[in-house]
């Protein structure tokens, strides 16, 4: 009887130990919010499963009809991050994406959900990939203060737009219709369109100039959009941001002629 009791104790101890080891991935930490994966699961089933699928692999029932395709959480590859290309995102990155939505995709803003609910969803989304157990996200990129825009800055940005071959995908006027646009695919092999920089509504991952700076610096993992963090200096990235900011008005002017 004592032997049985000891085995039971050992088993219980192992269970507690294992649950302790996995607890990091079962939680999310956004500011003073602590997300709970168990609560997040119920929310995921209510709000997310139809697109992202029960296994989080982006194969929900609506997925065949969506363009671009829903994110595959099992790969832990996320477009909108503050961390360098290839790194896991911060919990706050996932939280921000859920809150903001992803423009020009099927992903709406879930801001109407409670902050705690969004944090719970982050915790649950992290359970789909072992990477969140095994790795830690790199430190976020630094965004230096934005210099004021000027005709010179815009001109330099235009030159960078050309030299970095941005027009190949985004087109000369930034309409997302460059010569390579039709051939682009994401890492899952699905066709993907370059962002229409003339839409003037927002960038893929945020509405501000800082959002554009971040996207250019981190790249959009899982898509052909690379990081320019090593190819360009921060001042040059700001020049590019200032140039991109002029594209909606330029396109409007061109359309009116």
């Amino acid at each position, binding site marked *: 009887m004592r032997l049985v009791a000891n085995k039971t104790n050992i088993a219980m101890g192992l269970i507690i130990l294992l649950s302790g080891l996995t607890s990091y991935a079962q939680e999310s930490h956004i500011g003073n919010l602590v997300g709970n994966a168990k609560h997040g699961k*119920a929310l995921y*089933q*209510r*709000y997310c*499963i*139809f*697109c992202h699928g029960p296994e989080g692999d982006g194969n929900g*029932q*609506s997925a065949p*009809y*969506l363009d671009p395709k829903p994110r595959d959480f099992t790969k832990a590859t996320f477009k909108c991050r503050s961390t360098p290309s290839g790194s896991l995102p911060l919990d706050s990155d996932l939280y921000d994406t859920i809150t903001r*939505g*992803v*423009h*020009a*995709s*099927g*992903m*709406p*803003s*879930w*801001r*109407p*959900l*409670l*902050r*705690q609910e969004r944090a719970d969803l982050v915790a649950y989304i992290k359970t789909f990939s072992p990477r969140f157990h095994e790795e830690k996200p790199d430190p976020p990129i630094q965004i230096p203060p934005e210099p004021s825009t000027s005709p010179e800055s815009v001109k330099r940005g235009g030159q960078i737009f050309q030299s970095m071959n941005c027009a190949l995908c985004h087109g000369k006027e930034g309409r997302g219709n460059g010569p390579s646009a039709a051939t682009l695919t994401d890492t899952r092999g699905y066709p993907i369109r370059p962002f229409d920089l003339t*839409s003037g*509504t927002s960038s893929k991952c945020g509405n501000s100039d800082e959002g554009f700076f971040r996207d250019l610096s981190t790249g959009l993992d899982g898509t052909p959009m690379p990081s320019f963090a090593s190819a360009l200096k921060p001042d040059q990235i700001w020049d590019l941001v200032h140039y991109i900011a002029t594209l909606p008005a330029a396109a409007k002017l061109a359309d009116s002629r």
Partner: protein
Amino acid sequence: MGTGSIKRASAWLLLIVAFVSSRPAFAIPAFARKYGLPCSACHATWPLLNNFGQTFKDNGYQLGNGRDAPIYQQPDYWPITFRVLPQWHRESNDRAAVDKIAGNASAGQVETSVATSGFDTSSIDILTGGTLANNISFLVQPFINNGSSSISQAWLRLDNLARSRWLNLKLGKFELDEPISQERTLLSSNTGGTYYNYFFTPPGDSNFAGLGANQLGVEVSGHSENDYTRYSVALLGSFPTQTYNAYANVTQSFELPKLGLQRFGAYGYLGEAPTYFQTSGGAPIPGAGLGNRSFYRAGAYGIWYAGKFDFDTFFLHGQDNVFLGNSIPANQPSALPLGAVGPAWNGGFIEAHYTYNPRFVVIGKYELIRMSRQANPGIRNNLGNLDTWAVGYRWYPIMNTRAGLAWVQEYSRIINAGAAPLSGRDDIGSSLLMGFDFDF
């Protein structure tokens, strides 16, 4: 415990598990088809909206993700939904006036209990709505009831005017921005499916100012990004009445840790109604009302969440002008009874939901109305007082991308104080309903 008992218990367990299975609920066909979202994204339980659904509605049926314009709809998408509730129901009235001898009206009447039952269908609602273009939304909702048809709602809305979500303009026939939506009630029975406070008219009163009725007019509304702050102001007046009423509703929400979203607000409905009409050959000329007199309804409400429970609480104070309250033309003041005053009353309800998951919800409601001042001394103090309660549940066994289906069971009871037609005792009625509420 014998083998048979274990089998029976297992069968029950399986049934219960199937009943409250936490699989996600999918549906609301009209918009789910367009956006690929489950019905549970917008509905706490269909048709009750959650905050995400309320935000979607307040945004003009737009998600704001750059995919709202009709150009992004799949070619086979057709934004039409119909909803109907085939059912069996039983209605009873404990104190109906019945001829002592059937077929002989002169033999006098007695009060007795009358119950009727049978299979039936609800009216058929047909909804088509969505966006005509970015920031132009619409809804058309015809319904068919007992062979006749009508338009329940038909409106067009200009959204985000001046690029601000605080300025939206709706024109047409629409549901008022009610504190708790009559259109989206989870209760369906004859007795339980109505918020009586929305439609109440005091004894002897000629004024029908239904907060719950869809009305013609123009509405200006706005909301914050997360919909925690909302407002709406409507100018109402259906052709050819030539009277205009105003309705306003303001809502504020806040988060309580571990409990959820808490919403509270205040509303008011202020207007006037004619007390008599110009006539032609003695018959009133429609729209040619005269002697307008005022009325108002005002109150406050809250929607309180506590985990899987939520409580809708509603309070109303109403008052009508003395001429409306006594159904006397304003040009005949001498016809007013001695001591006549404008009737006043208070009312309210509390409705509780236990949402186990989007597929299963238990509902309970208690509602009351109390006259605080009768229109004249000849009316008994308690006449018009009303108590009603309802309990029920809705189970959504099948929901997919094209349809929603709920099994509904409900019992409700109403007590109209002093309204028994012969004895003046309390008049008591009840409804029992079960059926399938489905939309496609």
